[in-house]
């Protein structure tokens, strides 16, 4: 699973704003809406995708994010190749 954690809309993201302001100097004048956050990747054993998403949603709300300031997006990522 891939969990992306970001600041909720409306909460200032000065890091993203600073990156955005630097882009025109490199010629990237059409990039906007830059927001930074963090990505957390892990594997989970579950009977199906719905069950996995349900568990991960609860994990995000109770631990991986602080709902006062953060929200999250969950996506399925390919399982890593065993080492």
């Amino acid at each position, binding site marked *: 699973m891939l969990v992306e954690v970001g*600041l909720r809309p409306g*909460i200032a993201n*000065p*890091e993203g704003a600073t990156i955005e302001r630097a882009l025109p100097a490199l010629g990237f004048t059409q990039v906007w809406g830059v927001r930074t956050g963090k990505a957390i990747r892990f594997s989970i054993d579950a009977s199906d995708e719905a069950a996995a998403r349900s568990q991960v949603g609860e994990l995000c709300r109770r631990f*991986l994010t*602080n709902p*006062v300031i953060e929200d999250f997006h969950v996506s399925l990522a390919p399982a890593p190749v065993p080492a």
Partner: protein
Amino acid sequence: MSATVGVVLFPGSNCEHDVVEAVRGLGGDARLIWHGAESVGDVDAVVLPGGFAHGDYLRPGAIARFSPVMAAIAAFAAAGGPVIGICNGFQILTEAHLLPGALQRNRNLTFLCMPVEVEVSSSRSVLTRDLAPGQRLTIPINHFEGNYTCDIATLEDLKADDRIVLRYVDNPNGSVDDIAGICNAEGNVVGLMPHPERASDALLGSADGAALLRSLLGAGVVRAL
């Protein structure tokens, strides 16, 4: 008699000895409590000190909240015991839902380490019971995530219930409503970003923090009687 203050030591705490020394300097007793303890023991007040509990991994306080001692601290607080969170301790108390809101990165992403002036906004907490509203104190701050925020309904509740304990005179970090410290509805759980233990003696540049710690010791004595 004097109050005994338990100072919680998490892996990564770094202000615990400063708090112990400050409390002893004021005539109180102090001892460390390991974060893995199942009980806070026979103490009259608990302080969660500053530092980087569990490396601040994930978010400040996010993992410390699950340390075994936190269940005992929640029970101690629910029974009316004074619990103070200083800096990282404040962050832990919000993550543990013992105080509302959250502490986000400072405005402008600036790490701040300097003395600031704060004003006592409420005397109804165990940390400010001996001080008068309007009284100004100079106390150091030392944080990256001290920008207090909460939803509008929570802020209205904090104001209506007189639970904003300290406000910055010149807001250094972007905190909503200049908040430097808040308390719970009962006034026995307090979180603040400034470090009173670092302003506990004139030799340190200010003894203003001693007034807050004296209030706490007084509250602890009242509880112990």
